[in-house]
């Protein structure tokens, strides 16, 4: 309803699927901004284009999405971030990539642009007056405060990013993140690529979500081309998506316990993860199942022996995992570290539209698989796990519940694989489409526009981390510096998916 009211006078773009896109006036844009600030709709994406900006809105109760596009020919658009903080970093990224100014934005500092690309606004009209490579962190005032700079290179085997802690003794007073170090210009590389190459690039946006990204990309491309993947392909996609989710949940549950110095759990979870990856390898020929989902379908099949084997594996994994969950439950010294640590309040999770286990551990019951169902989840519906506490423990518990659900889904899908072709052939044509998929980390939105030759004119990939990274800054406040790794791992935001 809310979305319909916002777009009542606007013209829908023909052939934009599956949700509508409208070209709107500045007043409708401002009205959307007010609705966002009032919490009536959720920010789902905000990105630049050659001469306009796009705003994706989610109406959660109505389970609907609309994309609003505002002409930006004069290089300016009214800031959404001015009244709705979740938009701030997205606007800073638009400013860096396209050179558009978000008029009235509260924070005009660059975000992805570190002054090292050799050009400014590389996706818009490039300029060569580079930004300085220095960065002004927020000023800190107060007695007996000290700062701890960490990164971009961290002590472990993880992605690079900079964290600036301001601490009073051992307590974190403020954390400021600085990201963008792994910005690879993926959206720039998308332009001109054909959909097959686009799917490969999408699958390399965030390595731990390669299936989810390729899945979302394929759905966006299929929407733009107005085709559907055949039933067997849709089921195999679901199978891979759940294997990916399971592997990540298993691995991360262990890694979180490791950051609370409970190594036994880590060792056993790592073994479980490895078993899942080996099964994926045996079924699909790649441990991470990369490049298997393609626009139109899937690139390879699984034989009936493979499906039967998966069935046996799930029994074994479930048995082993239940024992580990029991271990987690019975280890009070571990829960002493995870309970009441890194609390994210439900109101903030709602305001930021935090997806995935971060949102669901803080009372936001949003899961694309049930809220905006796509095959195979229109037939195989997972239960949405939900908790309110919002601490590290709650995020672990959501992932435990979801791993269990994934095991069920894998069994159901493997038992019901239909026979039939693996892909629908693609005829190059123009079109626009969006794909939204629930990765293990949350909702991934991919939007693309194909030109008449069938090549990509513009593709935007929005990682769930955009709405989770800022919340980590809040969740760590008042915790001790030493608990940061634990909190950080319990969020497990993507650097590469965010930096693009």
């Amino acid at each position, binding site marked *: 309803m809310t979305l319909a009211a916002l777009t009542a006078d606007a013209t829908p773009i023909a052939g934009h699927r599956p949700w509508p896109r409208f070209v709107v006036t500045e007043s409708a844009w401002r009205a959307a901004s007010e609705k966002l600030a009032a919490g009536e709709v959720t920010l789902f994406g905000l990105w630049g284009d050659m001469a306009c900006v796009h705003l994706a809105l989610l109406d959660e109760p109505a389970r609907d999405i609309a994309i609003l596009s505002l002409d930006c020919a004069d290089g300016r658009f009214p800031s959404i971030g001015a009244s709705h903080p979740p938009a701030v970093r997205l606007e800073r990224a638009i400013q860096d990539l396209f050179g558009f100014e978000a008029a009235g934005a509260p924070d005009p500092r660059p975000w992805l642009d570190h002054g090292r690309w*050799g050009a400014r606004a590389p996706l818009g009209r490039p300029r060569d007056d580079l930004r300085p490579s220095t960065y002004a962190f927020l000023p800190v005032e107060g007695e007996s405060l000290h700062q701890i700079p960490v990164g971009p290179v961290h002590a472990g085997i993880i992605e690079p990013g900079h964290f600036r802690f301001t601490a009073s003794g051992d307590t974190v007073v403020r954390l400021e993140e600085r990201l963008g*170090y792994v910005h690879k210009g*993926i959206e*720039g590389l998308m332009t001109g690529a054909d959909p097959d190459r686009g799917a490969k690039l999408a699958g*390399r946006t965030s390595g731990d979500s*390669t299936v989810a990204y390729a899945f979302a990309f394929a759905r966006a491309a299929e929407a733009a081309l107005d085709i559907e993947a055949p039933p067997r392909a849709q089921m195999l996609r679901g199978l891979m998506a759940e294997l990916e989710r399971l592997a990540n949940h298993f691995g991360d549950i262990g890694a979180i316990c490791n950051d609370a110095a409970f190594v036994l759990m880590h060792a056993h979870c*790592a073994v479980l*993860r490895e078993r899942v990856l080996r099964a994926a390898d045996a079924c699909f020929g790649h441990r991470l199942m990369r490049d298997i989902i393609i626009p139109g379908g899937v690139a390879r099949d699984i034989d009936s022996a493979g499906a039967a084997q998966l069935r046996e594996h799930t029994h074994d994994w479930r048995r082993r995992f239940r024992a580990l969950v029991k271990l987690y439950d019975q280890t009070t010294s571990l829960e002493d570290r995870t309970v009441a640590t890194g609390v994210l309040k439900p109101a903030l999770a709602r305001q930021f539209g935090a997806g995935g286990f971060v949102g669901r551990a803080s009372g936001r019951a949003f899961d694309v698989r049930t809220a905006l169902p796509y095959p195979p989840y229109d037939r195989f519906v997972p239960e949405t796990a939900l908790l309110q506490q919002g601490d590290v423990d709650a995020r672990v518990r959501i992932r435990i519940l979801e791993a269990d659900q994934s095991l069920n889904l894998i069994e159901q899908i493997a038992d019901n694989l239909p026979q039939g072709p693996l892909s629908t052939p693609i005829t190059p044509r123009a079109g626009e489409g969006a794909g939204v998929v629930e990765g293990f980390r949350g909702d991934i939105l991919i939007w693309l526009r194909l030109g008449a030759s069938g090549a990509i004119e513009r593709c935007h990939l929005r990682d769930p981390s955009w709405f989770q990274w800022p919340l980590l800054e809040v969740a760590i406040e008042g915790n001790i510096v030493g608990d940061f790794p634990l909190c950080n791992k319990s969020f497990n935001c993507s650097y590469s998916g965010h930096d693009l």
Partner: protein
Amino acid sequence: MWKFILPAFLLPPLTERRPAFGDRELAELSRRLDKAAHRKLGRSLSIRHVDAGSCNGCELEIHALSNAFYDLERFGLRFVASPRHADVLLVTGPVTKNMREALERTYEVMPAPKWVVAVGDCAIDGGMFGASYAVIGAVSRVVPVDLHIRGCPPRPIQLLEGLLRLLEPNAKVRSAETPG
């Protein structure tokens, strides 16, 4: 907890056998790896990893090296937290322009002798990202590289093969496996 610890004494280990050396990509090895350096290092290497722009896929498989199946440490190879403690720098990803300085600085603070291993197709030639305005590309364009390990991402067993080769540069291709 005993339920987990007791079986560990009773059941056989999960650990894979040590991989046999394959001579394919590894033949390009040892640009600067001479015997003298090996005498200095003995049979132990400290490894520091830097993600210079990866998609995070390569990291996942580097992590896997520490699980019970691959158990990197049994070979005297271990990951360290500071480049100042490291003999080997493991670099993943196409080097992004935003990470170039961090990579250079990490390399510079490592004590000599030091080696660089470029992990993954991106690290070798920029992979799918080479043409981007934001990417420098091959790791070798920023720091000297001694060993390349291909793959997107390389499998843990390939990573293990490559790293073991650093320890034993003169090892001939072995057909028979030695138990790990």
